[in-house]
């Protein structure tokens, strides 16, 4: 199910409710909406605890029929990869689904993950079967299914690849961690020699695409990727090149086999022909400038 624009000409939604507005992704989306002068209601976990009893009623009370809702809220893998975290993530969306049933809205956009795909396919597109291999991927796949059950139409399921950006609070393996360890220790440590290739997406691109999806009231599935994968070694070298002082890139003994992931971005190019993804070199340079400038 590729993305279909229900509004061929872009138009601002009446209001966008961002659930999970204080996180790395949610914050970028709220900022992008502000830049585009699209009214938004930012709901963080402090405003709405989705694990608390009655969260569904509280959320429904805040929703309006003409709203678009962007769902970003999730406990990310750095908060736990266990059953308990998995179940909490499902309960959060259970509450959101109940709220959407009580108060339907005009458009729902879910920010999921490419973790819904198995690790084996090196080339992924929107028709790749959803066969998650871990709790994180299963959580995203289950959340998508739960949302499909209550939002028959007007549902966009976005599946970003690995994200990076200066404001990222997670410390996952990739450009964000590389930048921090290069800054603090003058070192970047790789798994193996960093041969694995991944499609690294600048956070600003996600925010831009979410805005475009909202403006076109798009429905369906879309992977968010650049279409160009780079090795972790390559990403590390790009990060290291941002520093005035030498940064040591240290290989480590590899724990698992080398896997690669590439994205066929035909659906993205068709959906938003004028969108140009940020190259990894440009994105890493921009993130470095933001980190340096505070």
């Amino acid at each position, binding site marked *: 199910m590729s993305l279909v624009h229900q509004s061929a000409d872009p138009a601002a939604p009446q209001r966008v409710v961002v659930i999970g507005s204080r996180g790395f992704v949610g914050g970028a989306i709220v900022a992008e909406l502000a830049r585009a002068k699209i009214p938004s209601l930012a709901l963080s976990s402090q405003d709405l605890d989705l694990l608390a009893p009655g969260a569904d009623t509280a959320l429904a009370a805040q929703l309006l029929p003409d709203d678009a809702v962007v769902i970003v809220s999730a406990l990310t893998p750095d908060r736990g990869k266990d059953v308990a975290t998995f179940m909490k993530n499902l309960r959060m969306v259970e509450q959101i689904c109940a709220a959407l049933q009580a108060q339907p809205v005009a458009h729902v956009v879910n920010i999921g993950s490419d973790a819904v795909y198995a690790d084996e396919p090196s*080339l992924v*597109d929107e*028709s790749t079967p959803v066969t998650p291999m871990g709790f994180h991927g299963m959580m995203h796949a289950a959340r998508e299914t739960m949302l499909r059950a209550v939002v028959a139409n007007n549902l966009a399921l976005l599946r970003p690849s690995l994200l990076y950006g200066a404001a990222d609070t997670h410390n996952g393996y990739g450009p964000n961690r590389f930048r921090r360890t290069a800054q603090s220790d003058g070192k970047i440590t790789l798994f193996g020699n960093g041969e694995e290739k991944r499609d690294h997406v600048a956070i600003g691109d996600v925010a831009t695409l979410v805005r475009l999806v909202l403006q076109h009231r798009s429905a369906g599935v879309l992977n968010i990727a650049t*279409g*160009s994968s780079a090795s972790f070694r390559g990403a590390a070298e790009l990060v290291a090149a941002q520093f005035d002082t030498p940064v040591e890139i240290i290989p480590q003994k590899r724990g698992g086999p080398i896997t690669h992931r590439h994205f*066929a*971005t*035909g659906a993205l*190019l*068709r959906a*938003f*022909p*004028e969108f*140009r993804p940020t190259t990894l070199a440009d994105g890493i340079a921009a993130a470095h400038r933001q980190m340096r400038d505070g």
Partner: protein
Amino acid sequence: MSPRLGFVGMTHLGLLSAAAAAAKGFDTVAADPDDGRIAALRSGSLPVSEPGLAELLAEHGTRLRFTSEPTALADCDLVYVAPDVPVQADGTSDPAPVDTLLAWARQSVKPSCVLVVLSQVPPGFTRQRLAPGPALYYQVETLIFGRAVERALHPERFIVGCADPTAPLPPALASFLAAFACPILPMRFESAELAKISINLVLVAQLSITNTIAEICEGIGAEWNEIAPALRLDQRIGKHAYLGAGLGIGGGNLLRDVATARRLAAETGGDDAVLRSFEANSRHRRDWALRALSRALAGTVQPRVAILGIAYKQDTAETLNSPGLALAEAVGGATLRLHDPVVDLTAFAALGSAAGDPLAACANCDAVAIMTPWAIYRGIDPAALAPTMRGRVLLDPYGMLDGAACAAAGLERHTLGSPAP
């Protein structure tokens, strides 16, 4: 005495087959219930663009009698039912036109007449149409768009589906087929119907593996055009193997047969994974030009792009699954100029403006994409092309232009199976 022949269904397949029969010296009735279609043929207007067809009809047309009257079939000893069966974009096809014309023929032919279904039909189709009266056979068509005259006059073999393959072929059918001096392979209906699909699946396999390796070539600095000749000299692969890198699987017929085989595998519990891979690889490689163009034009504001070639391949006006059309439909935010030597571009005016010649289409463009390997595009001189363009991006997937000349002209040339510039 030579059998008197009839062909029913005067679209691409029927017309070519009737013309070939006339060329072999047989008096032939060329029938179709569509009065307008017959009137057009009588006036010399051809419904298809096919090299050599007009000349063939001019030379042998005196033995062809175009008619919309079914009674004209009454004297025929052998009647082929040969309408084109349209393929939908999803790879499915509906054989209803075959049933319609089979019934139309049956009402007029004599009991001793032999009826042959020539259109491509799904396995099981012909046996289900057995009925009292004229004998019914199925014959595999191997029409190739753009090479149909050659294929009709010089077939490699005839594959004939029979209710009973151990019985000799009827004299009228046997003597007609013998005129082509090629092997005749009678077999049961289902085998013949699946043989046609099997031929196309092997071709799809060759194309898919070619396209897969070509993409690897682009990534690692290898050159597919250096590898392919080595494969052709391998006797297990052969000099006629389908080893030309392409933009997915073009046209509708090959992908239709993949879809049919997938359906048959699903119905019978067979493994269809490789068939799904063919389809996925075709979709992926079809987007080669879109990806290359998107990367090459990153940062170009309001780009102008010329697309040369809208037909799905050269020497045909067919546009189903056309890479050029797919690119034109996908490129957003760009001003498009279109050119095709045969396709009527007025139908695609919403996508871009038509140009009368290739160089005019390329004028002031940031990028040029040669999406159909029409012979006339080989005549484009890179040294003349480059100065007319605003940019330097040339998508030449099929390698129509000389690489060294393009480099000398300063063009950034992207070609299938070659290292990306």
